[in-house]
């Protein structure tokens, strides 16, 4: 065998090298351990010396009044408002604001369990969620506006296809299955609709956009209203689910004959074709920031009390001739009495910081960041309402002094 000739010469040499390399690697190991230990000691010492303390303590407030000592504020929730919230926290210098875009449902859970200072959601609290909020309860602050638009992938069709709420409801109920149907053709004369079955795409996760969309379909179609209702999640009778506004956009873009719905800023930033929707005045409206803002203004919505039930508040189907019909408010939730809610660990200074930040985002500076990011700024009536709500927040029963930086 070939192995016998090898064994006479090679094994001693090879065992020698193995042993030697073991010795070498052991010294190496000691070196690595020593380095790790040194790094750990240095980091620990640095931590004790305050190297990693938040930089917020070095910031100074920039108002005409003297604000409280800056604090670190935390919020969590909606992914829809996350880009705007990030812009706000980056531009606001009087406090450090950390926002986690964990989803509206989680945001509501976090404010319920008091692990954050404010929660953000695309939909108002539902009755079960409201019942779960501990004493002293939260105030609801509408802080921005989202709008849903129907997007589709129909190669060869240019311009904005026209839809009515009734047609969209029938498509999403599975009653209207082909693009080439008489109802859709009747309101789109001259457009050659393909003879193809409609691929319905909806959200697979809970979403404020779904809340707006299903509210609109509920108002347009009685079958929808009595069997599916409006919520952040719907028990979809047909269609494929995609996660997030981006998932729906990508799925529609890659699937011919698909229809979906996304928030207006996704349709605009991705350049995907979206339809015009008929409003109560009978006009077909191509959504833009102006006609969404005017719709919210014209809806003449009467806001309930800040601590009241907001679940059926709607700004959809406004009466104005040019108003876009499918929009929804997005909300912040903050405890009505911060001292009573969080106890002594939440100082009056932190409360002042929180209230100042909230006043700033609903104020002129905060709202000026909306439009460039394709969000709709609040109408002045809503700003007034929000300001009063925020000023009504107390600390152990006493009013909180405010000082809003510009």
């Amino acid at each position, binding site marked *: 065998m070939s192995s016998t000739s090898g064994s006479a010469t090679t094994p*001693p040499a090879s065992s020698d090298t193995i042993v030697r390399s073991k010795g070498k690697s052991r010294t190496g190991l000691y070196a690595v351990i020593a380095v790790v230990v040194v790094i750990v000691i240095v980091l620990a010492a640095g931590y004790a010396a305050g190297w990693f303390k938040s930089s917020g303590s070095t910031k100074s407030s920039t108002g005409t009044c003297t604000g409280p000592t800056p604090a670190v504020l935390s919020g969590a929730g909606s992914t829809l408002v996350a880009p705007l919230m990030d812009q706000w926290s980056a531009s606001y210098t009087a406090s450090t604001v950390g926002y986690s875009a964990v*989803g509206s449902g989680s945001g509501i859970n976090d404010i319920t369990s008091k692990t954050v200072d404010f929660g953000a959601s695309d939909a108002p609290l*539902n*009755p079960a969620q409201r019942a779960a909020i501990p004493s002293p309860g939260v105030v609801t602050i509408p802080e921005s506006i989202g709008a849903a638009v129907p997007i589709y992938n129909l190669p060869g069709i240019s311009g904005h296809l026209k839809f009515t709420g009734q047609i969209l409801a029938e498509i999403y109920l599975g009653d209207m299955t082909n693009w080439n149907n008489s109802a859709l053709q009747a309101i789109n004369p001259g457009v050659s609709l393909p003879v193809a079955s409609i691929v319905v795409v909806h959200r697979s996760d809970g979403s404020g956009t779904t809340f707006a969309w299903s509210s609109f379909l509920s108002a347009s179609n009685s079958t929808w209203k009595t*069997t599916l209702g409006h*919520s*952040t999640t719907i*028990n979809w009778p047909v269609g*494929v689910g995609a996660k997030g506004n981006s998932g729906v956009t990508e799925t529609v873009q890659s699937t011919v004959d*698909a229809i979906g719905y996304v928030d207006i800023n996704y349709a605009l930033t991705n350049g995907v074709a979206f339809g015009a929707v008929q409003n109560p005045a009978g006009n077909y409206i191509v959504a833009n920031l102006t006609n969404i803002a005017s719709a919210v203004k014209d809806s003449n919505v009467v806001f309930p009390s800040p601590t009241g039930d907001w679940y059926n508040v709607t700004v959809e189907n406004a009466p104005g001739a040019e108003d876009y019909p499918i929009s929804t408010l997005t909300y912040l939730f903050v405890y009505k009495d911060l001292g009573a809610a969080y106890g002594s660990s939440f100082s009056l200074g932190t409360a002042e910081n929180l209230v100042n930040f909230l006043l700033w985002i609903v104020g002129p500076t905060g709202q000026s960041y909306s439009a460039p990011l394709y969000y709709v700024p609040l109408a002045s009536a809503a700003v007034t309402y929000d300001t009063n709500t925020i000023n009504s927040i107390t600390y152990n029963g006493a009013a909180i002094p405010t000082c809003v930086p510009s």
Partner: protein
Amino acid sequence: MTRGNPFPPRSLRPIHRAPKWGDRIFFGLTLLGALGLASVIIAMVVSLVHGALPAFYQINFDSFLFGHIWNPDGCLPPPIGFGPCSYGALPFIVGTLVTSAIALLIAIPLALGAAIFLTQHAPLWMREPVAQIIQLLAAVPSVVYGFWALIVLVPIMATDVNPVLAQNLGWTGLFGGPHNTGLDVLTASLVLSIMTIPTITAISRDAMEAVPRSQKEAAISLGATPWEVTRRAVVPYSRSGIIAGIVLGLGRALGETMAVTMTIGNRDAIPTSLFSQGQTIASLFANEFTEAISPLEIPALIEMALLLLGICLAINIGARLVLARLQLGGRTTTE
């Protein structure tokens, strides 16, 4: 050691002194690592059980495990919820098992073929580079797979592959129903198979490389053809490595979240054909965890996570049993 060595290496010198302090620290660190990891797993199970307790108490376990309908919103009053209040996990258990099984069906022949080629037949210059490229697949993040599938694979499936399958294999009943979306169980399984191939290939290849030359040479000297060498010498010797690779691949397929969520169509129902939309336990988690609005939804989801953990454990234990069997069987046949 007949020649004797006048200068034995340091570590071969007899040691008659107490262990160095460095050894003690090293021992402590390794002990800490081992105990730490074990306690992390125990803590995980404990916290999962704790999180799922409300679901254990308030949802009948039979109706959870065998329920066909997942509708947590139904537990809330209209206009939020409609329909029955039901937490049925069966659609997701079926979805998870079916996608993983199909993925393995596709992946195992391809991965083993690649491993055999790379260790037995490929020219030497080709072996390392190709193996490295296949291993690179394992390093691609799953969201990239999902995105690629959505942009490239889904349209191909919808327009080219699915119609052909429906026409030629429709009679099997596996390829029924509308297939114009490409977002279905079949596409998700295909993506999963691509994700599991590198794991299975890499581990089986290592196992096959470890087959001693003498084994193969013995087979060749008995006049075995290359196929017979592979079949009778290489595969039996590397069996445990191959099975370990398959189990690891299966683990990845069972728990894969992003790529599945992006391709399976996310429908909370038991798939009726490979063209149906479906949902796995992991994709349900990704879709619903952050936006759970009914009170028992989170505990029910955590209970489902426990279920997935249980499935993975069962498969691991099963694989070990099979391995033990095989090793026992192997001994009786070869010796």
